[in-house]
């Protein structure tokens, strides 16, 4: 029947059913007349006719079956019934809803992050047209000369370049850094961002020797500039240079790099001003730009790539770094250009967190599956208890489809309520996760608001849940045979019943999945524990790293060494400061300086093999870090710019470059063979330390005295050892301000630096540990439920056993064996799954392997212990049964 007809039936239900009544009434009257004519009394005739017609009301119901109204009616009845059933089994329903809520919430929270970090395109018009320009790989940094060549190419509708920086708003003292983008003139026009106030940067703003103008974000404008339109035209200090604010970027465009909310945009040309280096933009080895573009209408990334790569030889020939070795230059000239579809822009947060987020997604999906299994079991047990009722309804003529639908409605109802709690939970959990992500990199800005993708995800999860745990009991109930169910009394059939089998299968699955998660969590926790326990080769507590910018002091470069010496002297004089030293590279800061080391008798296997890390340090550096000097001496006042060149090496360098022989007095040269440097004499050997981060191996490091390493820009990195790294900062600020008020300062304690470098493993360890525990708890509830249910059904049998003289311990053993068997099968299955799946974790592990037998064995032990304790409670309760009571009661 047509949908329209059904709908019109709904729209005139009262009218419709009145018509039906009238029509049947007529039929009844006609029949009565006929019977009376046949000689029956009118009262008898009426009764007979009514009997034959089967009751007016029921008739009209059946006739109305044709309408959708009946369907809605029975749906409402199902809903009412479902709610009543939930109210009747309050505890079980609460457990079910909380399980689903946690499961759905965790999934939604993780998915909202994946959505924000990976899936969601940039909030600009036609993000699908955006491409990133690379050298054929996923991401590439460009030099400014290279960008200027690419900008001139006609291959795209438009292109732009940008670089991220943290510019200081203060004019000295402790730095107030704000996330800044240097952007090319095409940035806003190509992206299609419109100003909230004033104007945005244009190509005319981005020319060599440009005026110092900037635009600010709406957030920054409201938060720090008062949010008045009059801000346009005023100046702010960026890195101690005045910039005129010309406009405000609306909140709807938070920035080009997902995860970072940019506060300030300055034209690319201003980078030279900020750097106080007019030739900065001409640096052919200064790789700092990301280049993106917009495709022409109808153009695809491949066409654009072809056009770009055709032009690549000319582009690279025009920008060849003249000072590179020949071999490197040849390689440079062979590079190619390509356009990679990049609707979401480039983000380092995406690069770092995509894999962990997908791992967590898999983890929470498994947690949800375990939770679903619990709810399915609950509904199945409830359906089993209602077997008699269902059988009666079938016997008096209910349709099986109708029953099926009712149980499915109950499942959906639970799923829906659970999902609502889940979404609330996810709102909170999502914010927490964003904060955890931010632990390593300042503030992380992520838009986790609900959009169609998230909504679709939640809807699908909810429907699938409802079907999964509504379907199993519904299917079973719809297959009940009324005769056998009614015959077998309230107990149902005790053994080999399909429902019990399905319940056991669910529990086995839960235990298997729980083992997968517990093992995964075990591996990640073990990795994290190893990372925390790593000895970086120095004492991290009490160590503060101060970054001091001398650029704005106006002191000429030639006088910087004197200024630096003055700063160090003042710091040493602060009470509580034990020692002070400078270094070009602060350890574990993820910064690096490397180069080739050439020694007699050492031939590198390949290019990489000949490379060592470098650092330039002041005397006292090793004392400050408490890294022991094993042989030889520290640098001293005698190591000056003019004295013979010397170096201290670490043990790894001794082993690698000197074959392990005592190196004191030996020399090496720096360079790659084309242009070897002057000989450098080794004067000391220090213990190994970690260079960039704690999760790398101890690699060769060569230390030069700061005096002999040349000029490294205007920044000093000062390491200060004191009793308490944090409380000393005000004294340091004051002391340096006395030397020169324009010196700006950033502080970070070494312990924070270490914590930041292991933030990602910590995030994974904490979350996988939490979800592993949750999975275990849910599996425990599932197993407990199954065993308790089975004990309840076997009360009579257990009573008989006890009455016939079975010892309670035998009963306990019997029940525990049942739990143990289920757990055993689950564990075997889980081990197979774990071994197959844990390989995915390999890249996230440190110091352990995905198949570490100790972790697996421990996890199996934990799950088994939990499983047995889940069985122990019902087992002990069974053993305490009073045989007389158990036998007397039927249920």
């Amino acid at each position, binding site marked *: 029947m047509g949908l329209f007809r059904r709908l019109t039936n709904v729209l005139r239900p009262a009218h419709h059913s009145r018509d039906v009544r009238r029509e049947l009434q*007529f039929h009844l009257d006609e029949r009565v007349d006929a019977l009376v004519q046949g000689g029956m009394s009118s009262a008898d005739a009426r009764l007979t006719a009514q009997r034959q017609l089967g009751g007016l009301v029921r008739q009209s119901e059946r006739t109305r079956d044709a309408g959708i109204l009946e369907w809605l009616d029975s749906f409402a009845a199902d809903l009412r019934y479902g709610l009543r059933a939930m109210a009747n089994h309050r505890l079980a329903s609460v457990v079910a809803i909380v399980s689903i809520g946690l499961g759905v919430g965790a999934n939604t929270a993780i998915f909202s992050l994946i959505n924000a970090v990976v899936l969601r395109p940039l909030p600009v018009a036609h993000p699908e047209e955006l491409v990133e320009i690379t050298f054929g790989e996923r991401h590439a940094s460009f030099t400014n000369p290279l960008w200027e060549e690419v900008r001139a190419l006609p291959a795209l509708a438009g292109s732009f370049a940008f670089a991220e920086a943290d510019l200081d708003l203060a004019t000295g003292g402790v730095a107030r850094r704000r996330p800044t983008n240097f952007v090319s003139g095409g940035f806003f026009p190509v992206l299609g961002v419109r100003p909230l106030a004033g104007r945005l940067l244009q190509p005319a703003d981005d020319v060599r020797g440009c005026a110092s103008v900037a635009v600010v974000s709406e957030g920054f404008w409201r938060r720090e500039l008062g949010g008045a339109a009059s801000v346009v035209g005023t100046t702010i200090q960026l890195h101690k240079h005045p910039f005129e604010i010309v406009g405000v970027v609306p909140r709807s465009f938070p920035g080009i790099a997902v995860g970072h909310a940019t506060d300030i945009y300055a034209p690319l040309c201003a980078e030279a001003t900020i750097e106080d280096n007019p030739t900065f933009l001409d640096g052919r080895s200064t790789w700092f730009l990301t280049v993106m573009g917009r495709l022409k209408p109808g153009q695809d990334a491949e066409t654009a790539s072809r056009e770009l790569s055709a032009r690549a030889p000319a582009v690279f020939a025009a920008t060849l770094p003249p000072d590179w070795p020949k071999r490197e230059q040849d390689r440079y000239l062979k590079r190619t250009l390509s356009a990679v579809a990049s609707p979401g822009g480039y983000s380092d947060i995406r690069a770092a967190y995509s894999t962990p987020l997908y791992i967590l997604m898999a983890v929470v999906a498994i947690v949800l599956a375990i939770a679903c299994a619990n709810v399915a079991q609950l509904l199945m047990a409830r359906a089993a208890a209602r077997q008699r009722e269902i059988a009666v309804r079938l016997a008096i003529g209910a349709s099986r489809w109708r029953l099926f639908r009712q149980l499915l409605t109950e499942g959906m109802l639970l799923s829906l309520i659970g999902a609502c709690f889940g979404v609330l939970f996810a709102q909170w959990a999502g914010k927490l996760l964003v904060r955890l992500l931010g632990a390593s990199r300042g503030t992380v800005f992520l838009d986790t608001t609900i959009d169609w993708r998230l909504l679709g995800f939640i809807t699908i999860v909810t429907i699938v849940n409802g079907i999964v745990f509504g379907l199993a009991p519904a299917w079973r109930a719809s297959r009940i045979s009324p005769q056998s169910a009614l015959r077998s009394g309230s107990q149902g059939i005790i053994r080999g019943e399909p429902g019990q089998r399905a319940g056991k299968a669910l529990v086995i699955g839960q235990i298997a999945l729980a083992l997968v998660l517990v093992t995964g969590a075990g591996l990640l926790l073990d990795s994290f524990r190893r990372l925390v326990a790593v000895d970086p080769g120095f004492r991290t507590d009490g160590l503060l790293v101060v970054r001091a910018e001398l650029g704005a002091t106006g002191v000429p470069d030639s006088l910087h060494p004197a200024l630096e010496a003055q700063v160090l002297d003042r710091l040493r004089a602060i009470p509580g400061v034990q020692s002070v030293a400078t270094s070009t590279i602060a350890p574990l800061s993820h910064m690096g300086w490397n180069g080739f080391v050439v020694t007699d008798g050492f031939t590198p296997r390949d290019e990489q093999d000949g490379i060592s890390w470098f650092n330039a340090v002041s005397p006292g550096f090793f004392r400050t870090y408490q890294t022991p000097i094993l042989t030889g001496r520290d640098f001293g006042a005698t190591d000056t710019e003019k004295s013979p060149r010397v170096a201290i090496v670490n043990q790894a360098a001794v082993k690698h470059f000197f074959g392990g022989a005592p190196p004191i007095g030996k020399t090496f040269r720096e360079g790659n063979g084309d242009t070897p440097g002057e000989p450098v004499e080794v004067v000391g050997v220090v213990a190994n330390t970690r260079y960039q981060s704690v999760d790398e191996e101890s690699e060769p490091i060569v230390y030069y005295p700061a005096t002999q390493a040349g000029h490294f820009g205007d920044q000093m990195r000062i390491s200060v050892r004191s009793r308490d790294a944090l409380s000393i900062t005000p004294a340091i600020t004051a002391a340096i301000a006395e030397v020169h008020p324009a010196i700006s300062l950033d502080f970070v304690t070494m312990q924070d630096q270490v914590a930041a470098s292991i933030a990602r493993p910590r995030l994974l360890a904490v979350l996988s540990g939490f979800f592993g525990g949750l999975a275990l708890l849910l599996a425990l509830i599932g197993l407990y439920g199954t065993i308790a249910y089975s004990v309840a059904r076997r009360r009579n049998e257990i009573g008989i056993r006890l009455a016939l003289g079975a010892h309670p311990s035998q009963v306990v053993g019997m029940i525990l064996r049942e739990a143990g068997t289920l757990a055993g099968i689950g564990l075997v299955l889980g081990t197979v799954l774990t071994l197959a799946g844990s390989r995915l974790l390999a890249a996230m592990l440190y110091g352990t392997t995905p198949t570490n037998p100790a972790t697996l064995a421990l996890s199996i032990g934990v799950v088994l212990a939990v499983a047995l304790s889940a069985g122990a409670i019902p087992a002990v309760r069974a053993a305490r049964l009073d045989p007389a009571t158990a036998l007397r009661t039927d249920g």
Partner: protein
Amino acid sequence: MPRARNDILQGTLGLLVLQTLATRGPLHGYAITAHIIQASAELLRVEEGSLYPALHRMEQDGWVKAEWGITEKNREARFYTLTPQGHKQLAQEQESWTRLTSGVRRVLRYA
């Protein structure tokens, strides 16, 4: 024990109703019942419980249309008339019924 069944074979009720309306013009439900019983010499009996849902379904499918009218006893009744679509449906059902019965007859005769 074999039992004589005079219930209407599933699926044939529609055919009987359509045929009745085609030959006897607009009729109300009770008259349709009466006609089928009479025309079949009381071999067939129409369940009222099936008749009205069937009639309403046919109405919604557009095979019959219904109007309120007054009977000779001055009672209000719903009169059903065959639509052109109903005529087509009748022809189809007649044909398939003929095919079915001739098939069944053959089986009974030769199998």
